[in-house]
């Protein structure tokens, strides 16, 4: 009966969709119910059809209904229930992926992840901590079940991995056994897309050594210019930069070696005056293309001599460009020397140091961040940019930046409100748990209410114990 009515309704629906009377093709079972009056019959048929379709007919899925695999459990626990509301509130205020990355890094450094009910990454969120790799892979291929592997990546199981998990596993392998990671990349890299090749090749920056040289040299023939450039930069870090080419010579032409002083004559590098913006632009482009060894050789010196003779502070743009060149292609020893040099300068060049951050270890970044905070003009936002949300700095509220923050809160200038909010949030991301508690005490004494949402990040920090890594 139901099927017969349903079948008959097909014709009625077609007539109504096109426009026209459907009563003549109504299901025979309803003939007496809808009556003979044409207008009334249409309305009655509509009421009956609507009720029939709304109550008795439920859409059925197409073929291939696929339950999705479980969201994987991560290596770190999700935040405790007590802290989830606070974390959700903080998440709602974060407007860009960079801010979210800082929060994720803070939580991961403390041993926690966000709860998947509060946030999950997209497959393309490449800058989230590696601990989220299984969720990224789940988001990418959640409709396809693929066995997860707990083994180290090898040529044999390469294809068993989803991309994010493979990248995370390779990072761990590189830290543990650099030669094995190089050998694996040498065998498998060619089969990946240029974007993936570039990303995986970047892993070699960790524990880079002469053992990587043959593989890096083999990439001189890679199809992708960016991959070739990265391989060349890594070789340059090992002291095997390209010979002095035209570009290095052209860049050197923007500078000259001078001798200063009458009694103790010292050599120095001096920038030649530039006459047009086009020249400045060309010089900048050359800084980004040439490696440090090549540039030093073009000036008849070594990278170490170049750093020592450089007229730091006279041309900030050139300073930062040189630091960028060193970050890209300088050896570890040279980067360490450059870090010491920048740290020892009377005036802190935060921009230059930020350029160097990818090559610095956590201790170096923390030391520089504290230096910035203790110097006049330093802010917690700068310290956050230098260290990321690692929650590893102590004594923060006692720094010059802390005093400036307390002073600004007392003055409560509406125009600086957004800046104050950002300072308090940054402070919460970079402080050790004890430092966060100290800061909360001092801020309360300065008149901030404990419930003030600007203190949310500090409150989360102060409340969060170390998680247990599974």
């Amino acid at each position, binding site marked *: 009966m139901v099927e017969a009515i349903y079948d008959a309704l097909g014709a009625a*629906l077609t007539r*109504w*969709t*096109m*426009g*026209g*009377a*459907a009563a003549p093709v109504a299901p025979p079972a309803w003939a007496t119910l809808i009556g003979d009056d044409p*207008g009334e019959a*249409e*309305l*009655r048929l*509509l*009421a*009956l*059809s*609507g*009720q029939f*379709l*709304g*109550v*008795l*007919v*439920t*859409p*059925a*899925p*197409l*073929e*291939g*209904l*696929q*339950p*999705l*695999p*479980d*969201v994987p459990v991560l290596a770190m626990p*999700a935040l405790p*229930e007590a802290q989830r*509301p606070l974390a959700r*509130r903080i998440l709602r205020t974060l407007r860009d992926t960079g801010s979210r990355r800082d929060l994720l890094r803070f939580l991961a450094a403390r041993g926690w992840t966000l*709860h*998947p*009910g*509060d*946030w*999950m990454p997209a497959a393309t969120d490449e800058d989230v901590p590696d601990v989220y790799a299984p969720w990224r892979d*789940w988001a990418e291929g*959640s*409709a396809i079940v693929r066995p997860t592997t707990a083994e180290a990546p090898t040529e044999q199981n390469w294809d068993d991995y989803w991309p994010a998990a493979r990248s995370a596993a390779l990072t761990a392998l590189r830290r543990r056994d650099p030669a094995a990671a190089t050998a694996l990349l040498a065998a498998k890299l060619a089969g990946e897309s240029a974007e993936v090749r570039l990303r995986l090749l970047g892993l070699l920056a960790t524990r880079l050594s002469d053992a990587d040289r043959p593989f890096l040299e083999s990439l001189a023939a890679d199809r992708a210019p960016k991959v070739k450039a990265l391989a060349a930069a890594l070789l340059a870090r090992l002291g095997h930069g390209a010979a002095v080419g035209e570009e290095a010579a052209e860049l050197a032409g923007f500078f000259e070696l001078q001798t200063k002083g009458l009694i103790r004559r010292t050599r120095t590098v001096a920038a030649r005056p530039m006459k047009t913006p086009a020249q400045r632009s060309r010089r900048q482009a050359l800084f980004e293309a040439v490696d440090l060894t090549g540039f030093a050789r073009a000036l008849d010196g070594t990278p170490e001599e170049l750093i020592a003779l450089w007229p730091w502070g006279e041309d900030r743009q050139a300073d930062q460009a040189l630091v960028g060149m060193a970050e890209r292609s300088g050896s570890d020893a040279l980067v360490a020397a450059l870090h010491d040099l920048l740290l020892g300068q009377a005036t802190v060049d935060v921009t230059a140091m930020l350029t160097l951050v990818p090559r610095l270890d956590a201790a170096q970044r923390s030391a520089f961040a504290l230096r910035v905070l203790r110097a006049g003009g330093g802010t917690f936002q700068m310290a956050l940019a230098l260290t990321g949300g690692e929650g590893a700095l102590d004594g923060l509220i006692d720094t010059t930046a802390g005093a400036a923050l307390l002073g600004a809160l007392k003055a*409560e200038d*509406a125009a600086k409100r957004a800046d104050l909010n950002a300072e308090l949030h940054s402070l919460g991301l970079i402080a050790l748990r004890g430092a966060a508690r100290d800061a909360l005490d001092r801020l*309360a004494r300065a008149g901030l*209410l*404990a*419930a*003030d*949402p*600007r203190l949310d990040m500090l409150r989360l920090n102060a409340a969060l114990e170390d998680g247990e890594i599974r």
Partner: protein
Amino acid sequence: MAIDLQAIERLATDQPSLKAAAGLAKPAKWSGIGASQDGALIWGECAGSGANPYRVMADLRDLGNKCTCPSRKFPCKHVLALLWLKAEAIMAFGAADTPDWVSDWLGRRRTGSAAARPAAAGAPAAAKDVRAALEVEPEAPEDPKAAARREAASAKRLEETERAILDALDALEQWIGDQLRLGLGAFIDDATARCRRIGARLVDGKAAMLAGRVDELPARLLALPSGDRARGAVVELGKLVLLARAFRAAPRDADIRRAVASAESREAVLGDPAALRLTATWEVLAEQVQTRRDGLVSQTTWLLNLGASGPRFAMLVDFFPASAGKRGSVFTPGDQFSGELVFYPGRTPLRALLLSRSPVESSAPDWPAPEPGLAETLSAPLLAEPWTIDVPILLPGGRVAVDATGRAWWRAAEGDTVLPVAGATEGLIRGTDLTRAAAIWSSGRLEILAAQTPWGRLGAHG
């Protein structure tokens, strides 16, 4: 931090505000009273004219304040009453963790020169008088003739309204017939404009609720996959015919009148002895805020009854003009509380008013077991009241699955029931077992409000 009645007097905009506040400064009107640990912030929830209570908060340092009521007076009578409760110690403000809604307000408010201005700088105190506000005016004895006149006028008004509605329903049926004649394909393409026109006619005919429903019809249709829209239009328009016929048959029926004309006032529901009152433990499932085409914002709070008896669900609905700006949420999904609700009278009590609310004493019970017979549970409300749009339902164990086109479906863990899921489901809800799920069955699809999972309680959006 102390506050006295003189400060409240200065803060009030006029004497009527003070008078109204005096009436509200009584424990029976309030729930959830509290103060921050440092004593600077106080808050409470005050029963107003809507289904949801108003959330009221104040900063005692500078008497900055906020209330979720739609009053244009600042401060409103609820804020003054809260301060009054504090000043006269009528209720105890126990120190508690500051609720999120107070913290959110604190973060948004500007404590610059204007807000921090001491209360003394407000309107002159002489124009207002707290003592006068407390005086009780004697009620004038009612004139029996005047009462009879009023009743007669009321009956006449009711009759005129019914006549106007019946005319409007005739126009609606005529319009539905036209849509069928001109083709539902064209109707779907032009639904917004066409529904707007007949909606305006229904408003003129005093069928306000029906007008709102017709205005929202295109949105419900467009939310369906394009292949389902013709069928959806038949269902929607068929329900309108059934509702129109039901009104003609029983114009005084409370359920039908509420669906066509307007809902009863709060006072009418409270005064109706047939209205079901129920004290139970409730969980806030979700809050839905929707800006409607008629310029109103509807705020619907879905509650799940965790007890063994009474209606399984309750729905608190308030409307306010969109021009009044964004209104703070009254509840947080997942909140559990003990509360007394009074339901609007009807065959299937669902819409309700919140009368009182207090924290859950002991650990709250788990979600109850769903009714056996899912198909009957889905269809019963539609058979009792065929014009019903939203049917809340508690689903047994199941899981979301996707078909080859990426559309989501809920599949029961036991048996072969598969139901389509409305909208995009993202994240965890697609990747875990749903041991229980609360959902709205509407337009032949499920809108999942909340679920219990191995990862804990999950809201609709993550």
